């Protein structure tokens, strides 16, 4: 009994200890997040207004919803930034289990958006399990690598970790969600690399990744991916069809020039660019803010990643470090890939721009994750600004 009660008390205090007030968080990182969120909201309003007015009956349709989620997400971020990030280890099992269930479950939902099973609709909320999948994978890998640091030299263990990555990637690939698969794979790879993966395996994984990619093209995804590659190489092959979105994006970016048309002045958002509030919001950004505005935003993302790494390197433990790296790297990589897509530098993969693209759940998710990084910064040895 006593033991039991002591345990309970222990548990209680330790749980409470997660909410213990610790150091101040990293203001630089906070302002970078806040800045990107605000700019993202402004640009979302500008980009989505005509489409919203035409398809939803009100120019404010998207911005009001996104604004609500942003406020909610910010509150959550501040809360999360006060919760010791070790708490996530406690929920790791649940999170991973629920994520896997959703990743499998989504495959059995009725297909939306043509052939893709990507969205789960829980009635009150709509989201992509792959978004949670990224978080779950980062959490899981960070935990496993940090906890079994010594076993990282063990080949079998590394293969086990790779297998975990493979499970996540495989499930998302089954959704036909190539970009998310690539993201998951890259994040997993980076975490394992930083976590001490042997260089032999690094080479092995590189080969695996490449061959997996090739395999994806020549197997069931052939028509989907190869078409994407075809219209990537020359979107003008089908100006009104498969190349349309890419072309409209290029026309938007191209007409922005160095200085842009000025905020709110995009012409392409007037129903030319399909769904300008989603994956292609950055083309409207380029059209309105020009090369300079676009470059500043890219630098903003770069600073975010840099600051995240600084926080990581000064984290009190390995779990915090890997978690921080995983979370900011995920944001940075997604931003880079999105920009490469809108400029047609890589094939169109359907990847959103963090902080900018419309999507309440993913914005809230993003801010929560940024909250975790902020919390890590509280206990890190970073000089507080």
């Amino acid at each position: 009994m006593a033991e039991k009660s002591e345990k309970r008390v222990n548990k209680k205090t330790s749980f409470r200890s997660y909410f213990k007030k610790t150091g101040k968080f990293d203001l630089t990182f906070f302002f970078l997040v806040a800045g990107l969120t605000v700019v993202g909201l402004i640009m979302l309003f500008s980009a989505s207004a005509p489409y919203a007015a035409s398809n939803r009956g009100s120019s404010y349709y998207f911005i009001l919803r996104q604004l609500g989620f942003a406020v909610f997400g910010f509150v959550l971020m501040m809360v999360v930034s006060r919760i010791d990030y070790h708490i996530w280890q406690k929920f790791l099992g649940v999170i991973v289990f629920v994520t896997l269930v959703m990743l499998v479950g989504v495959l059995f939902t009725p297909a939306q958006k043509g052939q893709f099973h990507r969205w789960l609709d829980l009635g009150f909320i709509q989201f992509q399990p792959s978004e949670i999948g990224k978080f779950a994978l980062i959490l899981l890998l960070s935990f496993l690598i940090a906890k079994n640091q010594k076993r990282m030299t063990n080949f079998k263990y590394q293969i086990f970790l790779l297998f975990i990555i493979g499970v996540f990637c495989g499930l998302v690939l089954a959704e036909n969600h190539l970009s998310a698969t690539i993201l998951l794979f890259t994040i997993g790879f980076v975490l394992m690399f930083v976590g001490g993966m042997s260089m032999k395996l690094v080479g092995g994984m590189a080969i695996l990744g490449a061959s997996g990619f090739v395999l994806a093209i020549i197997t069931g995804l052939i028509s989907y991916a190869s078409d994407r590659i075809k219209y990537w190489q020359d979107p003008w092959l089908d100006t009104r069809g498969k190349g349309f979105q890419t072309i409209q994006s290029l026309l938007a970016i191209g007409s922005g020039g160095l200085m842009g048309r000025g905020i709110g002045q995009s012409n392409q958002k007037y129903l030319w660019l399909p769904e300008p509030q989603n994956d292609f919001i950055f083309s409207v950004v380029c059209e309105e803010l020009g090369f300079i505005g676009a470059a500043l935003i890219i630098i903003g993302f770069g600073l975010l990643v840099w600051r995240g790494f600084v926080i990581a390197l000064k984290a009190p433990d390995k779990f915090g470090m890997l978690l921080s790296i995983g979370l900011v790297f995920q944001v940075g990589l997604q931003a880079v890939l999105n920009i490469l897509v809108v400029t047609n530098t890589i094939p169109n993969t359907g990847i959103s721009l963090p902080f900018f693209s419309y999507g309440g759940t993913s914005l809230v998710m993003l801010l929560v994750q940024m909250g975790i990084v902020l919390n890590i910064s509280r206990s890190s040895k970073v000089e507080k600004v």
Partner: protein
Amino acid sequence: MAKQNKRKIWYRALVVLLIFVVFGAVSTGYGLINTIFVNGEKYSKLAEQQQLQDIVTKAKRGNIYDKNMNVLATSATVWQLFVAPSNMDEKVKDSVAENISNLLNQKKYTKEKVLEILKKSTNYETIGQPVEQEAATKIREYITKEKLGSVIGLTETNERYYPNGNLASTVLGFVGKDNQGLGGVESQYDNVLTGTAGRVIAAKTPAGAELPFSYEKVVDAKEGDSVVLTIDEYIQSVVEKHLQENVEQNSVNNRAACIVMDVNSGEILAMATKPDFDPNEPFKLTLKSRVKKEVKKKKESNDGKISKKEKAEIESAAMQEQWRNKAVSDIYEPGSVFKIITGSAALEEKTLFDSDTFDCPGYIKIADRTYKCAHREGHGHQSLAQAFMNSCNPAFITIGQRLGAKNFMKYRKSFGLEDKTGVDLPGESSSSTHNTTGLMTNVELASESFGQTLKITPIQLITAISAAVNGGYLYQPHVVKQVQDSDGNVKQTVNSTLVRQVISEDTSKALCNYLEGVVSEGTGKNAYVPGYRIGGKTGTAEKTDIGTKEGEAKKYICSFCGIAPADNPQIAILMLIDEPGVDSPYGGTLVAPSVGKMFEEILPYLGVSANYTDSEAKELAVSTPSVVSKSVNDAKKEIKSKGLICSVIGDGKTVTAQSPNGSSIIPSGGKVVLYTDSKAKKKKVKVPDFKGLTVSEANDRAVEAGLNMYINGNTSDSTAYAQSVPKGKKVDAGTVVTVSFREIVTVE
């Protein structure tokens, strides 16, 4: 161990950060720079193209009026059918093609042809020629009924319309496919007539959805200004009628031209070239016989073959030719008409006096050259007036030699014969004269003195002659009097431009006397019009640059320049026919009668009253009274009172019909046939051949046949050369047949 491990992690994290930052910066930088700076211009242009629709609304082209505001050229609203083939449902194309073809009802646009257009993958195609209101309404109904509004439409456009067909076509010119002026006033005043096209610039969305706010910017089209010509539609039509008749009668090979000028202002009252073209169908070949001849010639030189290209070239040249305004664009040797210039210069310089006399042995020798007179036997001893009447070459060569090269050239220059007149018409040619800088030789002077070896345009010559007869004032010729805006407000008035005074009023007056003599007694007799004082000068120039090869027939340009009234000149008419295909090609014979007829119809119109001499009055025509339904006795009395005779057919008491009808013009003493029985068959008579008869012979023949003859043209020493009703035709007794007379003038 832990420390080493940590360093390794540090190291690896930095590697990841570095690779990511470098990769991220380079790749996104590449993407943006490539899109914004390398291809930006191309993309932004494409963006603009798709975002904005820029519709040009054509301005209505201004009208062209004659001096009395009669419309010579106007623009009518028509509608052009267009389709958007790429957006049209494939399934309906067949039926749409059939319906459009039927609605258009244009030969070239069969169902197959329309379907071919509909099968294209373009966004915009026009079909057929523009249609008028009625057809446009039907097409619109069809579009509404079949709900094809998004793929078929009509755009309003303007089509040029010339209500008088050929009238003044070489002056007016015509317009091309885009309503741009080609040739004539249409080209010269294109800027004025065109107006400013309007534009509708509107933002466009791919689905055609409404925008939250409007981007539309409308710039209204501004209707073109109208141009009022100095051309008088009536005078122009008179000129063209007689010019056309002349061209046909004399088988003129190389077209004919005529200008009527107000001598006191330089205004061109009429200007015509025949054959010309219908500006409503400018690309219809009118010089077909010429094309045929050229094709035949080509075939002969090429073993009976002709390539498509060669034929097209010939046709294209013929088309250029039919549009050419001979009166300003062709230079020619004016021949004896030029003696007016030589004479007036010599009178002015006082190297020639009214009292001078000349002896003509039929030739004259200048240096080593012998010039023959047209009258081979020579005119003998003659006064200056007679020299004009006879158009004596040796006399005028003498006058020229006395005047001297220096003076001659001075007047050639001051009469404006060395420079373009600056008439406001396109395509004016420069004259070609001997030596404009140094001094001409005596031989050159001799040739130019009587209008040979120098080549000038008809507009130059009539401008110079106008100056010679109007008191010496050289005006710049012009065809446009006024520019008006679309509401009829005068924007610009073109005043007469006096270039300089060339000769004195006295000299001018003297000259007019001599010219009147030419018409009343000399080679210009055929231009004589009873009641009017007409002056003029004939001209017949051998074309020295062609037809000189052995065996080739000589070719001539015959001309006549008349002025009226001779005591106070108001108008001048210059007419020339290039290469008449008849024997005895003399200006006095072939051209003067036509000019006379023109004067006869134009002078009364201009309010110049006729003063008849007694003998003229006798020949004067009478207007027949209308006596139908009157009693026979009354009718007879009435007819007799007019100096006419009558014959009655039938036994009735009242007149049921008469021939000729009331208000017909017949000569004094003519016969009116009265019918008193409506059932009685009208008496038919056969029209005799009048050609070659003198006036009295012709009259006898007319009376014999039971016809009335109306005499046209010069009657003294004349013979008939044309009749209004062809010989052998059966007509009612008493019908008036107009017979034209002229004197055969065989000297210049």
